[in-house]
């Protein structure tokens, strides 16, 4: 069972997406911001990380930078799932090491397709 770390400050998204992806056969770990995510990474090694950008505390950029800078997490693929869908944010995300930038809102089918393609 593939493990996905899902980070989003919007609880509704977090809950609904977790429910959906669980139904699709993934194991979900969640965090509400970057710091929360890093903490979860201490005890888990997911196969994929999906993160929001705008979050209180540590935002998505800082989070990606952090995981890309530490040996243990560097190889985990990162997908960015953000409502701040500007070219600048997308460019910055890719520079930091994300492999895809997914715009909110997005159909679950499309999201699922990207996850499957990545894993």
């Amino acid at each position, binding site marked *: 069972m593939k493990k996905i770390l899902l980070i989003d400050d*919007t609880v509704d998204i977090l809950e609904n997406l977790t429910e*959906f992806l669980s139904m699709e056969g993934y194991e979900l770990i969640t965090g509400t911001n970057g710091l929360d995510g890093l903490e979860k990474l201490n005890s888990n090694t997911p196969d994929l990380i999906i993160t929001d950008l705008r979050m209180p505390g540590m935002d998505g950029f800082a989070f990606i930078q952090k995981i890309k800078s530490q040996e243990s997490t560097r190889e985990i693929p990162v997908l960015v799932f953000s409502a701040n869908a500007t070219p600048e944010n997308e460019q910055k995300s890719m520079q930091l090491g994300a492999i895809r930038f997914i715009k*909110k809102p997005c159909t679950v089918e499309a999201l699922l397709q990207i996850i499957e393609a990545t894993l």
Partner: protein
Amino acid sequence: MHDEKKIVQPHSHLDELEERNIALEDIRKNLEQTVRDKTKELQAVNEELLSSNEELKSANEELSAINERLSEALLLIKEQSETIIRQKDEQLNQVLDSSNDVIWSTDLTASGNSYISRSVERITGISVPEITNIFSTWSNFIHPDDKSIRQESLELLKHQNQVSCSYRVINKRGEEVWMREQIRIEFNSEGIPIRQLGIATDISSLKEAEKALIQERLMLRSVIDIIPDYIFVKDSKFRHIINNRAMVSLVGATSEHETLGKLTTDYFGSTGEKFLDDDERVFKSGIALSNKEENIINLKGEKIELLTTKVPLRDENGITVGIVGISRDITEYKNQEAILHQSEANLRTIFDHTEDSFTLLDHEYNIVMANSPARSVSPKFDVGVNILKIISDERREIFRKYLEQASHGDIVKYEVEYGKGQDSQWYSITIAAVKSDGRLIGYCITTHNLTAIKKAEISLRVSEERFHAFMDASPAIAWIKNSEGNYLYGNKTWNNLKENNMVASGFMLKNQKHELEIINGNQSVETIEFTKNNAGVKQYWNAIKFPIKNSTGDLLLGCFAIDISERKKYESELQQNQILLSRAYDIAEMGYWTYNPDTNHGNWNEQAKRIFGLEENFDTGFEGYLSTVHSEDLKKVKDAVALTLSNNKPYDIEYRIIRPIDGAIRWIHERTDFVPNDENSRLLLGVVQDITIRKKVEDILLEYNQRYEILSRATNDAIWDLDIEQDFELWNHGIQSIFGYSTTHITSAKQWRKDKIHPEDYGRVQLEITNAFDHRRTNWTSQYRYLCANGNYKYVLDRAYIIYNDNKPVRMIGAMQDITEQREFEQHIIATARELSELIENANTPIFGTDRNGYINEWNKVTASLTGHSKSEVLGEKLSRYMSPTQHKNLKIILNRVSSNKPVSDLQIPIRTKDNRELTILLNATPRRDTLKNITGILMVGQNITELIEYRQNLEVKVNERTLELNEALSKEKELVEIKSKFVSIASHEFRTPLSTISIVVGFLRKHRAKLNDDDFNVKLNAIEKQVNHMTYLLDDILMIGKTEAGKITAQHNPISIKDFFLQIAKEVEESAKTHTIDIKLMCSVAEFYSDEKLLRNIIINLLTNAIKFSPNAPSVVFGISNTAQYLRLTVEDKGIGISEEDLKNIFTSFHRGSNVGDIQGTGLGLSIAKKAVDLLHGTIQISSKMGEGTQFTVNLPLQQV
């Protein structure tokens, strides 16, 4: 060690050892005592034991044993004491050696032991053990020059117990070291010297200080010697012990040494005694004497004035030991003072003996001094009196003005008359300021009585006036010339003749040479001169020319000439009238001659001879007679005689003769007739009479008529002759030529005048005439309009001469000149000039002008208002004054150009205004001309282009400013756009997030619908509905923000009932939240206030819902409503999660949400909206919060509509 044994420690340090020795001695004595006691015991025992040898033997043994022990004990004691002594000795040596002083001692006893401290090594470098003889060794190091000093001191020791000396020592390093050595002799109890003891101390530093002190004293001494004042110090006997150089030279000595030890009287004899008295007084009293003036006679017999200060000289104990004095030579000053006194006395003498009065005032006008003439002018002139108080009221102010004028350095001089009429007194008054060192200290007023001069002047003036009046009234000519031939004076007759060019023939000019002779010869000459009138008719004058010496000694020429032209005509009239008188006169004064034509022999009676001035050898023939006749009359006489001889007719002739006897010209009246001689012959009888005097008298009487005739014939003017009493007026042809009247005789002159003089002028003219009469003026002049025959008026200039008889005007002779043309021209010119100046003055552009020299003479209103300088201020000032100095050259060029008739145009001239701004005037300058077209100045017409220039200069600045403003606006706009786009981006994010949730849920439903039961399905639908609701709120809030930001919402104030309104809102919120209660604390002193309901709702609902939302674990929130004088205060308080400090900074920013909100829903716009609403209501909102404890919002809203 053994060497040291022979050195005995100095006495003073041996006491301790001595004591120790005594102690040891005691021990020894005790021991001896013990020994003695034991011996006694033993003896007793011996005696007891004598009987028993055994006992004795054993006793002996015991004794020897005891003895042995005793000697052992003694040895031990000795060893111990020696050790102690040695230790003490070493200690002492260490003390001595550590001293810097060199200490030595030598026993004078036989032992000859000596000691020297180790400190000697430091100086000499020789160690103590090496020293065998301390005297010679030490002596080797003493400076060769100083060896004797020590030697002498040592010699002294033979007589005294103690000596002290200072000398130099050369130390081991070759340096000089100053030492002071004290040597004393110690005696034993019997008075015998036992020891010499010396201590030598290094005093180099002391010596250095001493040297510096001496240096200082020398410097002080030089200073004292340089001072020109006499400085001296005296001892208690008043003997001079110090004199400075000035003092030495005062007493005539060459060196100070000669002057010392002497008394002042030794220097100056008896004149010095008073100084000794002073010395004594100062010495005894201890009180200083200051600045006493005294004099002495020095050795040269000169008197010297001294200003002396003496101070008691005290030693360190305060005891007076002498006197210090300083004297200053004030002889010169005293001499000056004496001279001053003398000159003051002189001045005072002059002061009191002069006839002029002198008054000295101080600077406040009080009389300081007034001499006797001044006091005689007014007895009030007392010292101390303020002069302004004793001056009459009407003169006070002017006098004060004069004093003020004088105080500025001017000498004010004026004349003043006191009293009236005969008794009046004239004074010339001079006021001068008295200054000292440039400071005003008073005034000197000199008054000189001018009355005599004034009176003489007045009488002179009177006589002069009389002279002029007489001369001007006389028909005769009178003039005075100087030796250069220039006229100094001419009477009216003469001036008239000259003015009318009647002296064209050169009357009295051709005879200049002859005139000079008169002046030089100092003799009167009588000549016949002539003038020619305009008609060319000759007029003869009998002139007497005479030298005059004027008051300054210049020689002048005077002339008095009588017209004799018309004499004959007049005389014949007179002859008829006065024939009888004349005859009678003739008889007495007549002479006669007879002449025989046949024999050419004449006979003269005595009277005739006298009249003709004949000499004794006179040729009595016809030729002789003719030789006396004046050359100009010769022909007349010859003709008359010839006529008589041929026709036998008598003749009657007047002619001039030149008297042979004195050359005088005389007028002769001669009548001849034939008288029968005897038989056929006949004699010619001539009766002669000298008529010279009569001629002159006649001439004077005739002058008036002649003058009138001449004038009336000569002039173009209308001449009128008014007989005032007869009211008859006679005119010359002028009345015809000028006015067109044919009559020349006006019988009713008064009425005529009234008719003819313009009614507007008549009154004035009459008044002027009456005025002239009243003042007995002989001349009258007026201008008025006179009616012509054709009905027009002509302007005339009328000048008349008035003749008085017994102070009563009897006749007026006048000449009227037609000045109509001139007058009209003048009026035309005046009108034009007035128009022009009006034009200039009121022109709407600056016009100003200067004369050729640049002095302003035109300055119109616009110029005045532009520059701020009024016309009256600038007239007569240089134009350059109102221009910056850099422009003066340009102005000069303009003036020169225009003055040479080259107009200048379009010049830019800067003019300085009164408030020191600079105006730029665009000028056209043209020459200004007088009526004769001469250039008299320049006229400048300008245009104020200052603003234009400034505009030009400022344009760039303005463009820059505008650009800057535009840039600012642009950047503001950019900022706005940025804010907007940021807002849009954030807003889109906020929409995308719920949309994202919806999308996920919808995706979920679509995919897993089949697996869901109804409840799960509803949960999903609710989730969607929640997102939709959130988006709806979000949209409402964003629209609200958008509206307020676009300014679309304005506050609509209405009265609001506080209680009802807020309770209602609170209730709504409570019901909608359902989770909390709202505690309302209403403490309001007002019931109603003005505000906008909608905005208020926005504020309160947002705050209350926030408070509820963010305090999920609290049961209630608190809503407070209170007020101050000006504000309604609303507080919303919760016990919620609180807001971090970081978040507080941006709490009112749109979409900003606290970092700790967790899953609490919100748009991040509520507070932003609340803040905007508060702003619209002109209120304030404050927030205080603590994380985890709660938050309080305070809103203050004005009670009254702003």
